[in-house]
């Protein structure tokens, strides 16, 4: 018999009632989706990227649909950490699910201060350290593409908080394993991957780039094979838990990530094609496990690596 506990999973110190999270930047502060379904059904919410100061974000257009994909250049529009704590966090605490706050800095010091400020707050499950946003010119991705700077950010956050530190990796690197190892050595409790792939689009009539920021980040089903390959590689190289994301639309996509080595998964762009997709993924995973009563979701983590 499949029970709720067969879906329970642990990302380090963080216990999730099920392995399905929603990805940062696609779910806001849960205000909007709360009107459509109970957020408590989710394994957790990775809230929109927070910076020390408020950010207006990039000039529009910020979106461009591509074949089975989406380019975005939002540019971390957010109200800043103080307003976040005042206006969003009290409500988020009461949603009945794990809250993971995504943080972005423009210097090492900013990452440290963000971690320090959020460390004083209750009701947070973990910090997700964004070292991989492709849409901001300074900071953001530049930290995430070199092992030394990625490790330095991780160390800084690690020293500034007792919360679990999850580091979000950029796919825009030559060797993601090298970066993964560096941030694990620097004290990351878990890794989340992947962030979006840097890309662009051009309007032939206007003879200009479509996005106001010229470059954007590609997400959606188009990036899934790349994301899956990276989860597979990183799983073989490190021992910390992985949260896999990149184009997950249905439960079979989620199973692929879990079998590649992810302890949990996150849905982002999938929300835009169906706001209920996270709930359908949870249901689908339940149905899959029901076929093998002895098995739990934890037994499937990395299952594809075992030779037959």
């Amino acid at each position, binding site marked *: 018999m499949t029970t709720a506990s067969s879906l329970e999973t642990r990302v380090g110190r963080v216990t999730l009632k099920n392995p399905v999270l929603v990805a940062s930047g696609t779910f806001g502060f849960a205000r909007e989706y709360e009107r459509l379904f109970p957020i408590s059904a989710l394994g957790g919410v990775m809230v929109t990227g927070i910076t020390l100061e408020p950010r207006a974000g990039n000039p*529009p*257009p910020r979106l461009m649909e591509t074949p089975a994909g989406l380019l975005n250049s939002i540019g971390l529009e957010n109200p800043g950490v103080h307003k976040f704590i005042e206006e969003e966090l009290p409500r988020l605490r009461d949603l009945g699910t794990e809250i993971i706050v995504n943080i972005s800095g423009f210097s090492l010091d900013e990452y440290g201060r963000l971690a320090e400020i959020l460390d004083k707050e209750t009701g947070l499950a973990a910090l997700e350290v964004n070292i991989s946003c492709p849409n901001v010119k300074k900071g953001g991705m530049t930290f995430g593409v070199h092992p030394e700077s990625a490790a330095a950010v991780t160390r800084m956050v690690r020293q500034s908080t007792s919360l679990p530190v999850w580091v979000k990796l950029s796919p825009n690197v030559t060797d993601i394993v090298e970066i993964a190892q560096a941030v694990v050595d620097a004290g990351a409790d878990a890794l989340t991957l992947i962030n979006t792939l840097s890309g662009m689009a051009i309007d032939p009539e206007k003879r200009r780039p479509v996005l106001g920021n010229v470059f954007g980040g590609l997400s959606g089903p188009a990036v899934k094979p790349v994301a899956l390959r990276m989860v597979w590689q990183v799983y073989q190289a490190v021992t910390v838990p992985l949260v896999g994301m990149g184009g997950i639309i249905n439960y079979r996509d989620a199973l692929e990530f879990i079998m590649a080595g992810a302890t949990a998964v996150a849905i982002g762009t999938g929300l835009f*094609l169906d*706001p209920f997709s996270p709930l359908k993924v949870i249901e689908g995973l339940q149905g899959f496990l029901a076929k093998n009563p002895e098995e739990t979701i934890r037994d499937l983590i990395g299952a594809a690596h075992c030779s037959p």
Partner: protein
Amino acid sequence: MQVETAGVISLSPLGEATGLYHLVLTAPQIAKESGPGQFVMVRCADEQSLDPLLLRPLNIFRYHPAAGRIEIIFRVVGRGTDWLARRRPGDSLSLLGPLGRGFSSLEKYHRILLFAGGTGMPALFGLVEQEGKVGSSTEHNQEFVLLYGARTKEELVFLDLWQAAGVKVLTATDDGSAGFHGTVTGAAEAMRISPGEFDFYCACGPRPMLQAVQELMAKYGIPGELCLEEAMACGIGACMGCVCETVHGYRRVCTDGPVFPAGEVKFS
């Protein structure tokens, strides 16, 4: 706001080779909650298909809470709307809506100028036809004048419906095939509006038109509201993808709009 499975009652092309279609749907929940200027997100792909990926935001033309129906007018502009134009009666569609902050109540205004450009027209019809309040314009002693612009005569649709609602309709076409030869703002200038003739305006259409309308009405000192059209991802305010620049900074077209008070949106 909810996800509702809507049934296609009818889908008909409008005019000759305009690319415009009129879609009538059963969607009782959305019909019940809709207001003027609101929109729905429509999934425009087969159930298992991932392409096109995103839902399409479409203006609600008419909503009939009692009959549980909504009507939509759309133009085929890409793969999504092309898919939509190939539906048949009896097909199901997945809708999310009604969405957005629509037009404010016009109760306190008496002489209202409406500016419609192309597929912006449907967003305005709810202002003159509200279910259960048919004839409300005369009861409130309200007078509506519609300035409706399109590229060519064939694209000016449902003029009879506007006239039946008691609205004075003036048209403008880019090619001069009907009404004023030029833009709706050109037509408005040709009207020689006198001070106090109109006390409010509402506009929906392409950005260059909205910009010209906003500038002209500011010159006449007439307050109003503009309804924007923009590509969207989530449609409900979460992703920050559809922002426009306003005097207050970036604002989400999907939830802070699509209707904005005149003077707020920065077009250049």
